[in-house]
């Protein structure tokens, strides 16, 4: 190094490595290799267990994906981290609980038309329950948006964020009141019974409840199948709404440029409300699916899944719909695999470490576009 601080070609290898950023890259590569090594060892050690974990992660990941979409769509349009979204998810789960356990709504086709086959009754009934939950959540989010967020559209963004936190607290603790939901843990009654299948080298067999599975077999429950299928269905529906309808076109336009969209005659406020409602409907469906998989509902159940889903949305590139799904699947895998192979309490830490590392490599997430200069 010359005295005046400039560099010449005779830099030591160390200085060179610093200048070109190799040290950081080596660090990241080492972390990545360590993670891959750990995964590889686990896979080689017990492939069946590993696959089982991957399936569990898939189930969780799709629930996260449904929640993450609400975050990503709202952020894409109004640039607001909607912290109340996780609590809308909680409300969805509670609505499901009330319609099923209190009002027995999942058996309405049987009560209306006695003699229908059982599978049809449960199928139609469950779909009705999910639809009710989605509708109530959409209505709730619409109200929240109109009451709390719309007056702050032109205020500093931080005000809206604090408002979102306030709404989140309100939903949680209002729900915790004895006469609203309840401050206790409530067992969620599944509308249908659990059916497990085991897959091993003998093929697929139904596993009667109470019987322990054979060694070296992967267990798939109908719940996992329903969650994955329902999520994919909802994702396709969302894709259709965003890509194939006039409302979707307007949503994309508003996300791209609000002013111009308004000049083109788009009702921007209406579109924003619709976006909130669609996101909340997905969260409501996710609430029921989550409660079916982990049958316990309580008033702060939305915080951690909501946060995970939000992280997933950021991971995938916030504002991007496929990004949210991919990010959520990664989060699901990361959570389940780290719970299985590292340690259960560390799963949140691992999830966030992945987020930080991905953001360091791609500052706008996996599918995110580089931020454009302000027009």
């Amino acid at each position, binding site marked *: *190094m010359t005295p005046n601080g400039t*560099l010449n070609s005779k830099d030591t290898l160390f*200085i060179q490595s*610093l*200048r070109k*950023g*190799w*040290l*950081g*890259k080596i*660090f990241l590569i080492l972390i990545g290799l360590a993670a891959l090594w750990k995964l590889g060892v686990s896979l080689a050690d017990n492939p069946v267990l590993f696959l089982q974990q991957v399936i569990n992660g898939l189930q969780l990941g799709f629930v996260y994906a449904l929640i993450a979409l609400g975050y990503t769509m709202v*952020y*894409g349009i*109004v*640039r607001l*981290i909607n912290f109340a979204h996780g609590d809308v998810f909680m409300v969805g789960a509670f609505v499901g609980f009330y319609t099923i356990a209190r009002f027995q709504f999942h058996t309405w086709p049987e009560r209306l038309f006695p003699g229908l086959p059982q599978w049809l009754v449960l199928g139609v009934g469950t779909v009705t329950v999910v639809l009710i939950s989605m509708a109530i959540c959409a209505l709730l989010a619409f109200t929240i948006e109109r009451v*709390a967020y719309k*007056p*702050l559209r*032109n*205020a*500093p963004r*931080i*005000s809206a*964020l*604090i*408002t979102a*936190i306030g709404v989140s*607290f*309100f939903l949680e*603790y209002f729900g*915790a*009141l004895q006469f609203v939901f309840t401050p206790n843990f409530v067992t969620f009654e599944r509308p249908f019974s659990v059916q497990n299948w085991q897959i091993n080298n003998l093929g697929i067999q139904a596993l009667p409840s109470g019987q322990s599975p054979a060694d070296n077999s992967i267990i798939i429950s109908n719940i996992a199948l329903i969650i994955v299928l329902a999520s994919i269905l909802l994702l396709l529906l969302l894709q259709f709404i*965003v*890509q194939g309808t006039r409302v979707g076109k307007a949503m994309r336009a508003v*996300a*791209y*440029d609000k002013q111009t969209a308004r000049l083109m005659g788009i009702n921007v406020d209406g579109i924003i409300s619709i976006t909130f409602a669609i996101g909340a409907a997905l969260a409501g469906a996710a609430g029921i699916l989550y409660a079916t998989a982990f049958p316990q509902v309580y008033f702060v159940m939305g*915080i951690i899944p909501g946060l995970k889903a*939000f*992280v997933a949305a*950021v991971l995938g590139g*916030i504002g*991007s*719909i*496929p*990004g949210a799904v991919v990010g959520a699947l990664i989060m699901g895998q990361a959570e389940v695999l780290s719970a299985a192979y590292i340690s259960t*309490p*560390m799963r*949140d*830490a691992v999830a*966030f470490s992945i*987020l*930080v590392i991905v*953001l*360091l490599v791609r*500052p706008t997430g996996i*599918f995110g*576009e580089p*931020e454009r200069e302000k027009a």
Partner: protein
Amino acid sequence: MQRTTLFFLGGAALIFVIVQAMISFGLLNDFYVNILLLASVYAIVGLGLNLIYGFNGQFSLGQWGFYAIGAYAAGDITYWWTLDKSAHALMIALLAVLFCGAAILLLRKLLSRVRGVDALSAFTLYLVVVIFLVFIAIQLGQALSPAVSGLLSLLPDGLSLQIVFFLAVLIAGLMAAEISFLFGLPVLTLGSDYFGIATLGLTIIVKVLLDNSDTLLPFPEMKGARGMVGIPEVTNWFWAFAFLLVIVIVVRNLLHSSYGRAIISVREDEIAAKAMGIDIAHYKNLSFVLGSLFAGLAGGLYAHINGFLHPNTFNFIKSFDPMIIIVMGGLGSITGTLGASFAWAFILEGLLRVILPQGTETWRFVVYPLILLLIMLLRPKGLMGEIELPFLRQVLPPLKPKAQPEETQAEVKP
């Protein structure tokens, strides 16, 4: 001395004397003293966050993590001292903090001569050095601790405890500052919201580690999720007020210096600031480290209020509390932060508990967000807005937060 300075110091002394007299004569019971101490602690965290977000524009949710680090670090040091008059925790932490601080300053100087060092490489370098130094500090601290313990034991009991407490709080602050420096190096290069999320991640990681401090970390005395007990209750109105006063003056003087103007210019317009020759990364780092230093100090004070620490206190949901305080008080307003933190602690801890009729305590968190919503909807710029005490007022005209023009937004892509 200027008149405003005189008024400010006189007013501060007056407040201190009045409150101290009220405590001494038993007019304020423990409940209210506790609220006062908590409010001072929140005010310190809030001032730190205001420096980061209000004055420098970096959206940090990590202050609560640094607060937690400070609380547990200081609590651990005094815990060992009260347990068996052993200064080994003190010595190890002190040496580690001093070594790492010196190394960071030295390395910064060296690295500043090399152009084009990316943040991640610098981070790796610092990390390796710091881990190495901490290892040395552990060895050296254990070797030195008997001598220091003996030396401190010569002093009267009360005095040595106060000294250990004071050192512990300082160490807590420095530790938080150094960790924030390391963490901030790569993370401060992220955009605003992404920075907020990454710092939120830090808060959560710290909480998870604290939950398992007895199994994952080598600190069995912290007892993980059961909560740490046995910390002496040393923090009193004098200490809380003294730290608060010093920090207010430090923040005020910083903002009145060229450093402060540079920090504010980064908030106003990064590109313009860069064009004026301001080293943006440096000032972002500076304000982040200072803010975290304050958070660590506040944590150290907090640990000694009740003598009990629980990881749930450092839950990420609470990390919004300092943010709520500074937004309620008005971003970029020192007076606002002070007022809002006292009002907030009093509303949340005291008033709601005292005012709400018996049996409706569960309504506390129903009323609180409603108040919050009303404040935000009616006064989006905070309760105090731009009111500032004359001593704290800046030489520059008050800088308004930019009325956000509708930004071009990220696209909802197929």
